[in-house]
């Protein structure tokens, strides 16, 4: 029972962190049809900035998160303008190569600037201990990660379903040229959602630093995980991404607890099974 409970909490926290990072990728992928392998690199930049702000500048945790999100978005703007613009609508292979190239560059530069060591982001005292639920104790940080994931999911759902920007976004996802003909400034929609996606990646990178440690090869190590989550969930769907994160987070965590010697074998076996059965993802729409 103890094991089941700790597996459930860890799986939930891990799944939520995955969700916060990869939901931005899912939205941009559904919107711009770009296979963006560099998404993890933005999460890594966020982690590096937060670590620098908290350890070297001595800022608080909240300020570090804010600085990381804003800083990463600022860094991403020229990258989007100069590089991503050119590969919208290009074949997948081109997009994969371009974004792998961007990832390699970011890894190389980040390590040249910050050095090739593991970056820690010190947690504030409030998040360090554990909470006693009466019958079990849970690490406060786990709860924090889960709550962050829920807030992000709710906020995104509200924005996309209830606001006028959400209407424009959904219209552009369904048919970009028709939306443009009806007067939606699609390039602004693209730019805003790209910025939000990158900001969320940075946020997830900082919040999840306890579960996915920020280190030199972060962008390469988790590049595949984020892409897999989006593909399993179905690009552009919040519910699908949430479901995929919870399922895959659950399988991965359970595998690590019960059969650590198998590594990620079951994770990838599940991915192959799901993609073979649902080629468009769990919540993917047929075209």
């Amino acid at each position, binding site marked *: 029972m103890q094991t089941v409970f700790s597996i459930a909490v860890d799986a939930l926290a891990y799944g939520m962190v995955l969700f916060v990072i990869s939901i931005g990728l899912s939205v941009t*992928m559904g919107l711009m049809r770009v*296979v963006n392998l560099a998404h993890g690199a933005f999460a890594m930049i966020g982690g590096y900035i937060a670590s620098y702000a908290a350890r070297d500048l001595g800022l608080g945790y909240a300020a570090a998160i804010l600085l990381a999100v804003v800083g990463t978005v600022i860094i991403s703007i020229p990258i989007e303008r100069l*590089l991503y613009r*050119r*590969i919208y609508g290009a074949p*997948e*292979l*081109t997009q*994969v*190569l*371009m974004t*792998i*190239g*961007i*990832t*390699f*560059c*970011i*890894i*190389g*530069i980040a*390590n*040249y600037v910050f050095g*090739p060591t593991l970056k820690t982001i010190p947690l504030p005292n409030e998040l360090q201990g554990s909470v006693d639920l009466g019958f079990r104790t849970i690490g406060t940080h786990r709860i924090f990660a889960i709550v962050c994931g829920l807030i992000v999911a709710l906020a995104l759902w509200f924005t996309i379903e209830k606001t006028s920007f959400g209407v424009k976004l959904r219209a552009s996802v369904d048919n970009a040229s028709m939306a443009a003909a009806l007067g939606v400034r699609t390039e602004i929609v693209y730019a805003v959602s790209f910025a939000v996606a990158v900001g969320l990646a940075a946020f997830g990178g900082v919040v999840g630093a306890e579960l996915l440690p920020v280190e*030199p090869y972060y962008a*390469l190590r988790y590049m*595949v995980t984020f*892409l*897999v989550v989006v*593909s*399993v969930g179905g*690009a552009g769907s919040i519910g699908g991404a949430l479901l995929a994160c919870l399922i895959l987070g659950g399988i991965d965590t359970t595998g690590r607890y019960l059969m650590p*010697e*198998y*590594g*990620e*074998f079951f*994770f*990838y*076996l599940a*991915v*192959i099974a799901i*993609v*073979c059965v649902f*080629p*468009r*993802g769990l919540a993917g729409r047929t075209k």
Partner: protein
Amino acid sequence: MALTMDKEAIATGSNRRAFGRDIIAIAIILALAAIGYLLFPDNLALLTRLIAIALLVLSLDLVTGYCGVATLGHAALFGAGAYAAGIASAHYGINDPLLMTLVGIAAGAVAGLICGIVILRAHGLPQLVLSIALIYLFHEFANKASSWTGGSDGLSGISTDPLFGLFEFDLYGHTAYFYGVALLLIVLILLRFLVRSPFGMLCRGIRQDPLRIRAMGVSPKVTLIKMYVISGAVAGVGGALNAISTQVVGLDSLSFTQSAEALVMLVLGGTGSLFGALAGTLVFMLFEDYVSAANPFHWLTIVGLLLILVVLFAPKGIYGTTAAYLARRREARS
């Protein structure tokens, strides 16, 4: 009638020219092999590894360049060949290099069949994700089956008999190098026939318009799976060569990184042409040897920049861009 005669004449003429080009290309490869042997007599291990990776990139070119299948998991076929050749020697005492190569080819082809069946179930992003999941699955499997593969320590205990009973595989790697060059030439010549054959043309047709090919009465999927098996056999040759020359097989031969690097080499050189694949491998591996010895992170930055530049300014790769430039100059002159 006259028109068809003309076309035939043009066709045979271009065939003859292509044949002449092949002879020149083989001569260039032989010359490069000789130069490599004379310039780096102490570094033949690197050159042999280069040849093994070139075989992997050629094999990737068959499915990506000629069939248009995007895959980030092609090292699975290479690693299967390497492990099969290694296991044959370490556990079953099959030490003859030719037999080990044959075992590698067979294992590569089987891995190609499995990967082909799984990967070709989807298109676009899901296809990419399937290929990635497969390479990780192979990797974890090889890691887990450590009584067979040595796990993360790598498979050791491979010993190879002299080639044809005459040429010992020595410490300096002379025999392995010559064996590699010979294998590469044989594979290259066979593949030149393959890509010009009706089957090769069919694969290119599938890349351009699968719907039309299906309307012609051919199943694109079956054709692509056949190509995958052939590609697996080629990658298996490379894997077996690697196992024979280094006498050890590591998990890195089954890694995502290896697959991604192979794709980078192919794109640097130029997809859809066998010589492009070779050129990309040569440039990438030699650069890597020089730069990453100094600082691995500088190497990553440079590869990333190169990739971005190639995608933006030379989408046909080094070989494709050079060939197009030469063709334009020739036309301008005539």
